[in-house]
């Protein structure tokens, strides 16, 4: 990966930010200079890191739950036609209902702990994963389906076992690139779920820290937390991208989503 170009972009933006602060002479509770933010970041790293750890846990758990349920739904919808009519409305409803609207409910039901944040995150991640995987499963090359049917004719497996093996050896592997696209989108938006959950009601996490700092006009701390959150989100995305790429080495590597 080429780190130089994004580094130049970020440095350029920081420089612009610093210039604006220097020229306009804005008070630091409106817009702190990048240097001050950096100073706050190093001075309060223990505080920020503690909250960041909690947010990271929420994001990762949300991802795990969202990806699992997304994959499961896609498999069920693809494999059993009647399930489609039952699960598809849920899938679409999970996107139609604004998470912001149900997040407070989740807090009332489950308290200020980890659970509501994980669920909000999972709700956001679920849709792109399920749709991506389902798309892939529905688009198996008919030529392969024909060949599989013929190859299985000389066997003695039951219809169910043959179907299982069709999924295991053909349909699922062919759908993996689409699933990976879904997971990439889900990973990119995963932090949103955790932060929304924390904003609505929490006692810890980067969202909680930012909300509190904002109320006390500690804008430098808000920015420092935001930077850590951005760093976490980027790291998570590129880590996931790297893992997915390694898992599918046969995929033509176009590096569109990579730096």
């Amino acid at each position: 990966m080429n780190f130089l170009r994004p580094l130049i972009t970020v440095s350029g933006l920081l420089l612009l930010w610093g210039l604006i602060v220097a020229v306009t002479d804005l008070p630091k509770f409106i817009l702190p200079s990048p240097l001050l933010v950096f100073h706050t970041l190093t001075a309060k790293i223990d505080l920020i890191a503690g909250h960041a750890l909690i947010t990271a846990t929420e994001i990762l758990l949300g991802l795990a739950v969202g990806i699992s349920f997304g994959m499961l739904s896609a498999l069920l919808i693809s494999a059993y036609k009647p399930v489609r009519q039952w699960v598809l409305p849920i899938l679409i409803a999970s996107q139609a209902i604004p998470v912001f609207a149900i997040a407070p409910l989740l807090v009332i039901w489950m308290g200020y702990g980890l659970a509501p944040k994980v669920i909000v995150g999972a709700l956001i991640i679920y849709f792109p994963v399920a749709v991506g995987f389902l798309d892939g499963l529905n688009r198996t090359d008919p030529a392969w389906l024909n060949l599989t049917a013929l190859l299985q004719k000389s066997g003695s497996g039951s219809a169910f076992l043959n179907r299982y093996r069709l999924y295991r050896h053909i349909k699922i592997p062919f759908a993996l690139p689409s699933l990976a696209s879904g997971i990439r989108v889900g990973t990119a938006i995963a932090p949103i779920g955790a932060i929304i959950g924390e904003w609505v009601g929490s006692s810890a996490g980067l969202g909680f820290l930012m909300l509190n700092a904002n109320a006390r006009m500690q804008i430098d701390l808000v920015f420092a937390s935001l930077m850590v959150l951005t760093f976490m989100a980027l790291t998570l995305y590129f880590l996931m991208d790297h893992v997915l790429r390694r898992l599918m080495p046969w995929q033509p590597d176009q590096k569109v989503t990579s730096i």
Partner: protein
Amino acid sequence: MSSDRLSYSRSQERSSDTARNQAALNVGVSLKLARLAFGDTIILENFDLTLEPAQITCLLGPSGVGKSSILKLLAGFLPLPTNSEVTGTDGLGITNRTSYMDQQDLLLPWASALENVVVGARLRGQTPDFKRARSLLAQVGLKDYITARPDTLSGGMRQRVALARTLMDDSPIVLMDEPFSALDAITKFRLQDLAANLLAQKTVLLITHDPMEALRLGHRIFVMSGSPVRLSAPLCPEGSLPRDPASDDLRHHYSDIMASLALTDTGPA
């Protein structure tokens, strides 16, 4: 696994192999088709085709004439229309002892050449016979590419892997749908030689639009033309397969076929 169970499963495999080999001898195929239509367009009507046992039958015709439809009916990819039947000369169905090779290589992009050859066993839940797969890959000239993934192989090599996969189950009946049409002339020529040797003693239907391919590989050649399609009288060139394309006999047949194709071609080219 205990050695007892291992030897048991081995002997079982061997007995099923011999059963297969006996079945492999002299199975012809007969297709009787009342009518095949897509919408209002009648593709085939009152169409009969017989594949002689242990011979290569070629169907030769321009694209769009319905060659592939016949093959798809035999393979069971298309549902058989009413009043039509596909049977072996022993009176049994054929799809459980038929292998199929497509114009596309249909290799699994994530799997090695070896895994691609044994995919049939995987799909049937059987233990793959890797020894046979390795020897087949060696026979098609890919001894050094057993672990290679398809994206690292050339088009000709990929089609060699597909040929090995087609031969893996040792089915007595093999259906081939323009298997070499996507290859360059030299690669095509080499693969025809290879196929002629490896398909000996099998009942083969080879669909092609290349007269020279039909003349090199076919024991019997039918030219398809018209709408609904009619078959020409079978052409049975002399000589053992693969035939030498430079022989006078073959060149004579070639110009005959080209003439009949050109005369009967009434549609747009």
